[in-house]
Structures are given as C-alpha cells and as structure tokens.
C-alpha cells in the first residue's frame, strides 16, 4: 500500500492530463525487444516458406515479407497512438467486427470448405481474425468500466459471456473450430486476469466437461452439435492409427515428419516428407512440421523458446501498466498469441486434434499476420501509455 501511494503522489490524481507524452519519449519507451522477437519469429517463417516452395521466394515467402513489413509498420503506428484513442474505439471495433461476422454468415465466400471470407471490394477480409483482438479489447474495456466489487457477480459475469458467445457461435457455424477455441480461451483469460472468482472457473470446468459429453452423446442424433468431419477429426485424434490413410493421414504423416527430423534435422530443403507432398498444407497449418523436419529438435525447440519469450516479455510488461484496460489488453494479446502457437504445435505433434489453427507469424496468411501485429501494437501502446490511470466510468 505504501508503494502504491508513492507512485500515486508522483503522477498526481489528474492522470488524465498526462496525455501528451512526446514522440521521442514514446519511442524510447517502445518495447523494442518485443518487436525484435516478433521480427525474429517472422523471419523463421520466411525461411520456412522459402523452403516449402522448394527453394523459392514465390509464391509465399516474398509476399509474406511484404505483409510482415506492412504489419510491422502498422504495429509501430498503433503503438504510438494514445491508448485512450484505442479504448474509445474498442466498442465500435467489436460491433463492426461482429456485424461483419454476421455478414459472412449470409454473404461470405467459401474457402477450404468453410465460410470465412467476405469480399469488401478492395480487400478480402476474414472477420474472425480481427475478432480475436476485438473481443479481448471489448472485455478489457468492460472490466475497466466495471467496479472491481461486481466482477464476480453472476449478472456481471453474464455480460462478458454473452460478448464472447456471440462471435464464438458465429465462428463455429462457419465452421472454424480452431478460431472459436481461440476466442473462448482469450475471453476466459481476460476474465480470469480481471479477477472473476475461482468458483466461476471451477464451474466452467464442469460445464466444459458437460459440453464435451453432450457433443459426444449427440453424435448421430438429430441434434448433433458438430459436423461429421469434426467428429472424425476428434476420433482420429484419439487414435490416428485407426485410419492412417484417411482422416488420420495428416496427423500420422506430420508426426513421422517431425520424428524423422531427429536432433539436428535433415537440413533446409531436405525434408522428404515436406517436399514429396506427404504433408498437407505445409505452408500454413503444418509449417512447424517442416521446420522440425528440416531443423530437427534444435530448430523446433528454438522456435518454441522464441515464442515463449515473446509471451513472457509481453506478459511481464503488462505488470507495469496502471490501468485495467491496458493491462488486460496487453496480457490478453500475449495469451491469445500463446494459445495460437500452443494449439498449433500440439496439433501437429499429435497432442491435439487437427482444428485448423495456423502457427502465428510463421504460417502464410495475411489477415492473421496483420491482426497479430496490430494486437501487439495495441499491447505496446498500452505499455507506452502505461502510466495513465484514467477513471473507469467516465470514459465509457
């Protein structure tokens, strides 16, 4: 308490006024370490995309470099803009993204067997991607606004649950199980960090178990919850060997590829599983497999450590942020990133079912890259403007 008081006197009660931090000091406060780590991770992606294309910058590596450059610029730009601006945009951003998700449901284009894309004339947008950030933002805003005492009251728990449920259900409908999982995970993490009671999470665990049970029981009945292919994925995950040439093929081949890489790997461009097409989608969901095949345990573990470092740096920097919004946003982005790569790696190593989550920063994909970089931009902005201690209610 003594410590808290000390900091308070230093910046005074009128924290709202400390708005015009100079550009120089902002650049000084900028989390360059995080930016460097992100660039390093993305570079691994460039190399792997080059390899997957058989030693060519096209069709993927070159375009990925351009996208990363754009994303990196966007991140810096977003980071330098005052966090209060982004706070003010949180709700509209969420509303628009949700509207786009609904639009996708009706006018969306089908890609890879799912309705995910919406054509906005100039750009093709996949609204489920920005929703990952929008949901974290709106929940952070909600807990900034909500007095801490009410955090665990059932009624006030219902609001964030509804905020999360709306996009999640739309995404499941597309169907995109991976993104839905990421959305839910992100939402629960923000709620957890905001201080929602342990009881809620205990209850959630029980409910989750119930849902799993319901999903399994509903199979084959009229009210079947998931699509047949999703069930197949789940069952082949449980035992891939039952169908090694059918649905389990992807998992089996991926595990073989990773394992055959050994400690030191087969060398760049030498991955037989990748280059002889035994791996499905090596440039997107299974790019980690190629990395582990060509660079072995050393390569795979290095990227894993790099990712963990990114999460650690982002999470650690959020400790210093004085406002709930920034704190939750920063930690939320870091955790979303964590879920992203953890699910992907678990998936390609056969620890989780194949749910279609790409490897962040490394897999080929424009929207996902841009959204992540903007997310980190927001987190860095929150850190730069971490000394702001704006009043909760007035700003909503």
């Amino acid at each position, binding site marked *: *308490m003594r410590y*808290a*008081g000390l900091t*308070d006197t230093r910046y005074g009660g009128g924290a709202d006024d400390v708005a015009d931090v100079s550009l120089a000091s902002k650049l000084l406060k900028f989390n360059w370490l995080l930016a460097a780590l992100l660039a390093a991770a993305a570079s691994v992606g460039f190399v792997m995309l080059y390899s997957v294309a058989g030693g060519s910058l096209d069709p993927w590596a070159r375009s990925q470099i351009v996208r990363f450059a754009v994303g990196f610029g966007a991140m810096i730009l977003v980071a330098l803009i005052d966090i209060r601006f982004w706070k003010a945009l949180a709700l509209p951003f969420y509303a628009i993204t949700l509207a786009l998700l609904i639009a996708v449901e009706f006018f969306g284009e089908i890609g890879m067997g799912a309705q995910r894309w919406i054509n906005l004339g100039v750009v093709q947008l996949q609204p489920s991607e920005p929703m990952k950030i929008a949901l974290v933002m709106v929940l952070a805003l909600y807990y900034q606004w909500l*007095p*801490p*005492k009410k955090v665990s009251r059932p009624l006030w728990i219902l609001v964030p649950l509804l905020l999360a449920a709306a996009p999640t259900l739309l995404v499941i409908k597309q169907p995109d199980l991976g993104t839905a999982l990421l959305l839910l995970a992100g939402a629960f*993490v923000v709620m*957890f*960090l*905001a*201080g929602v009671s342990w009881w809620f999470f205990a209850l959630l665990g029980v409910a989750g178990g119930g849902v799993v049970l319901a999903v399994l029981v509903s199979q084959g009945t009229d009210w079947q919850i998931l699509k047949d292919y999703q069930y197949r994925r789940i069952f082949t995950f449980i035992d891939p060997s039952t169908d090694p040439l059918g649905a389990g093929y992807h998992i089996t*081949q991926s*595990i*073989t*590829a*990773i*394992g*055959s*890489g*050994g*400690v030191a790997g087969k060398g760049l461009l030498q991955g*037989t*599983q990748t280059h*002889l*097409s*035994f791996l499905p989608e090596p440039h997107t969901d299974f790019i980690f497999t190629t990395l*582990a095949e060509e660079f*072995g*345990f050393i390569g*795979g*573990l290095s990227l*894993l450590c790099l*990712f*963990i470092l990114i*999460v*650690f740096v982002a*999470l650690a920097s*959020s*400790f210093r942020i*004085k406002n*709930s919004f920034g*704190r*939750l946003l920063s*930690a939320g982005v870091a*955790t979303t990133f*964590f879920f992203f790569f*953890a699910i992907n*790696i*678990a998936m390609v*190593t*056969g*620890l989780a079912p194949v749910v279609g989550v790409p490897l962040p920063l490394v897999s080929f994909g424009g929207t996902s890259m841009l959204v992540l970089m903007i997310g980190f931009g927001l987190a860095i902005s929150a850190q730069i403007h971490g000394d702001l*201690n704006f*009043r909760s209610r007035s700003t909503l």
Partner: protein
Amino acid sequence: MRQSDEDDQRVRFGRRALVLGGLQAGVAGALGYRLYQLQVLEAEQHQMLAEENRINVHSVAPPRGQILDRLGRPLAVNRHNYRLLLVRERMDSVEATIAQLRELIDIPENELEKAFRKLKRTRGFVPVQLVENMDWEAFARVNANAPALPGVVPEIGWTRDYPDDRAYDFAHVVGYVAAVNEDDLARDRSNDPILRLPDARIGKNGVEKAAEPLLRGRAGKRSIEVNAAGRELRELERDPGVAGDDLTLTIDLELQRYAMKRLQGESAAAVVMDIHNGDILALASAPAYDPNKFVFGIGHADWNALREDEYDPLRNKAVAGAYPPGSTYKMLTSLAAVEYGVMAPRERIQCNGKMHFGRRDFHCWKRQGHGSMNMKDAIKHSCDIYFYEAARRIGIDNLAELSNRFGIGEKFDIEIPNLSDGLMPTKDWKYAALGENWHQGETLIAGIGQGYVLASPLQLAVMTARIANGEKRVMPRLIRAKGGVPAALPEFESLNIAPENMKFVQDGMNAVSNEPGGTAYRSQIYDPANLIAGKTGTAQVRNISRAEREAGVKKNEELPWRLRDHALFVAYAPYDKPRYAIAVVVEHGGSGSRAGAPVARDIMMRALYRGVPPLEAYPPWIRPEIEKQRQEEAEGAVQEDASLDIRGGEGARIWGLDDPARPLPPIRRG
C-alpha cells in the same frame, strides 16, 4: 478508495498473471517434451517410416536361366519382347493417339479394349500395356514415328522363346512357361516377388517346371523415390538380382530330333540312355506340341485340338506313360529264376502252346507251341510257357524284389514333372490296394510282363541299361551341368547279380537280334562292332475271350486302333562293349518285332554312328528300302540342315565338358 481498488486489482492481476504464466510454462514444457519424445527418443522409428514413405521398391525380374542341350545348343532362351505402353497423362487425346497408331500397326480389338479398361482405372502417369510380342518391323515403325506419338512408349522386355526348329521336338522335355495364375501364387510359400511382376512367367511343364527354382533366379530391385501421389521422381538404387542358372541337359539335340522324327505319325515314346553314367540322350514322346503357343496364352481352338487329339500330344509318354512291359520283361523273369535258383539256364521246358494251371489255360502267343526251350531259346523266341513256369517257381514277391532292382516300380529323381512310378505288384500290394488275396495265376501273367505289371518307357530304358551294365544300378539323369558347373555323378549301388547269370540273359538278348529265328533278327545292325541286343514286346491291351481264341485270335489290323497291342522294344548296343540302352513303346502299334524293333534300331544307329549311319550298317535285305528313303529325304534335307545351322550358332555355349559320346569311333565293316 478508488485508488486502493486499483491497487487491489493490480495485485490480483499480478497473482493471476503468475498463475497463468505458470500454466503456460507447463503447457510449453509439455510441448517441448513432446518434441523431445518424437525427435530424440523415437527419431529412429520415424526416420524409418519416412524412408518407407519416400521409397517405392520395385522388383526386377532377373533373366531366366537358359536350357541347353548337352553340347550347349540352346533349347529355351530369352528373346526380346517388343511392346507398346501408353501413358495417359502425356497424350492429348487417347482416342486420337490410338487412331494414329492403328494407321501404323494392327491392334487386335480385344487388346485395345483391355488397354482402355486399364487406362480408366489407373492414374495418369502409370504406363499401361497396349500390345506385346510385336514383330520387329511393326515395332520399328512405331519407333520411327515416336516423336509424333506422345504418350506411346515403345519398350523392349524379355520373353521366353523356344527356337522354332527344335521347339516341337523338345516340348515334352523342356516344357514351357506361361503366365502365373492364382494356384501358382498360392503354392509359392516363399512369396517370391518375381512371380508377382505383371509379365511374370512360371514353368508349367517339363524341365521348365521341375527345375523352376534353379531357372528363376533371385529378384533384383529398383528403389525409386516417389511423392505422396506415387509419382516416380528418381531412381535411388538398382540391384539387377541374380540370373537363373543355365541348365545343360544330357539330351543330345540331334538324337532327340531324329527320335522325334522317327516316331512321327505314331503315338509313341523312345528313351535313349547312356548305360554307364545314366545320361538320358533322348527322351522322345510323339506327338508333341509347339511350346511357344503357351508363352502368351494358348488360344481355345489350339488348346481343344491338343486335348481332343486321340494321340494325346500333351502327355509325355516317355515318363508319364505306364504300359504293361509285355515280353520285354522276360529278362527279369529269367534273371529271377536263375538268381533264386529255381531254374537252371540249361533246363528245358516243353511248350505246347498252352499250360494248364489252376482252373484255366495259359496260352503262348504261338498257338502251336515252341517245343523244348532252354533259357536262351525262350528269350530268343519269347516263349510265354517257359516264363509262366519260371514265374510259378519264383513266386511273385521274389519276382518283385528282383524287378525293383532293375527299376520296375522305382521312383526316379529327374527334373521332369509327372513321372509315372509304374507298378510291380506284390501280395501285400494287392491286398492293400484291392483288398484281395493274390492268385497264383496272376504270378504267371506277371512273369510275361502282363497283368498288374506296368512300366514307363523311362523305366524300361533304365532296366535295359542295368542289364547291359550288369553291375551297377545306373540312375537316369537329365541335367548335365547347372550354371556351367558339371553335376557330380553319384556312386551307383551294386545290382548284386552274379555275372554268369547276367551273361545268360545278355546272350538271350543277343540271340533275339542276331540269331536267325530271333524275334528281332530282321532289325539287327549289320556291323560286328556295333551289334545290337534287344527284346521285343507286344503288350495286349484287351482280354481275348475263349470264343475268340477258338475262332482264331484277331489280327491287330482287324481291330480299331484303341484295341491294338502296344509294340515295345528294348535294346542295348554295342553288344560286346555296351554304351547305349534304348526303350521304344509304340502305343497300339501292333507287334514289337514289326513296329518297335526297327524304330529302336534306327534311333540306336544314330547314337552309335553320331549321325547318318553308313548304308553297310543295315542288314542287306533292307538296304534298298533305306536307300530309297534317303533319296526322298535328300530334297527336303537341304532346308532342314540350313535351318539348324542358323539357330545352332546363335548363343550356343559349350561348357568344355568332356563328352564321352565323342569322338566318333572308326567303323569297322564286316
């Protein structure tokens, strides 16, 4: 108040963030461990799986061993098989390409349909065979136009070939190969990959079948890197496999061809053997067939013609036929009689044309009887009564014991399938096989080589060879060398016959051929250095009823072919210094002296004189006939010899084995 709220929140955030971080570290640790498990602990196993994924191993058929005659002249070889393959993905339009092809070559409608069906089922890059076994001209025409025919791949493979000028003559010895069928695969316990190749052939008859494991060799393999779709990317490794062993037979090409020619027009078999080492120099069975027809699948019409032929061309009568040996068996009855001491060679038996035993009469072939006969006379005249009496005294079991020593009922281990074991009856055999007791009358019948006694021409040749050899149980052999390595000659067992007893029998055979009144006197060799000693046999294939016997036994000419007697003749030569033994069986040929002996003599002379014998070697009375025959043949012979030369040179390999059959002994003219 608010301030402390904020602080509380920050503290709580910090606590929860730590919990979260801890959970994340746990998850990350699990992922790291999973990588360790896959890439360090289980790496080897996954590396193996990846290699298996990547590499397709194809079997490569090694060249099948060739089959050669005793001097290395080819009997079964491998020749190029010109074929056309189609690769769908390289063609703009399959129909258009086929239409273009049909302007160049004839493609049978059914082959075309087969290829179309296959093309539809296989992936675009898999080659499908359109035609095979094309002649060189058609193949060359397609090759010349290949640039205009994308997707048409001319390919040269290998196929079995039996040289045309000798294919027919060796059909029963060499046999043939044909496509592998389900039964062949089921029988193959070693899971030989060669048999699973699409154009695999397996021996179905003759040496090709019996020596299949030697001829086939060991499969080679090609390791090919493939992608997930199965497309071949590059060859990583090639192991050509081990070629099958070339087999050098004991058969002499020219003698075999002559034997086949001599048997032409009959349903007959002839076997020539070396009496010292057991080499089978000729193994003829007529009629035969063209084995080349089987290699690519024989047509229904050809097959039915072969099957329905009354002369049974598909059966190798030389080894698979079992005939009552008839009078050719009488040497064994004689030998048993003297060996068991029940009859002295000089003892005389009275032949009155029939002998009463039990409740029936046993007849001699000569109705009026031979009069008083000693052993030599009995063999010479083939008197039945003498041997009825001899057999009665010997008893069936003793007779069987001695006969077995001479190969009757003996299994031989030569590389030809479907060998007949023949039959030498005993009391036990009859009881076991028919459930009846032996009648003594049956012993009498066995004594003249009728009744239950059965022997194959090969067994008769072995019997004669052992009689001529006099000491050793000579075993027949068909393979002279395997892969160029001469086959070792086994140490033959002893016959355990007293030499003087053997001499009585040999004297008898000499009398048959060389003494006036002998049953084969007319078919002697008129050359003191090459005298032949033989025994005629006429095996009855029907029962002669009492009524017929009283009315006069029908002559063979009066009977339908099927009911006529088998004509048999066994012989060896030269009499004083034996080299070769021969057995001839002419199915339903009539009497052995008329239908069997001349054939055997002619074949034997070819062996003795290494080719066309001098006219002086024939008895004077048939010289005009032989001369006339030779003149008639002279025109056709030019062609025949020319065709032999063309093939004889090609691929002929001589293994440098010493050939005891050469050089030619000088002929002394008497």
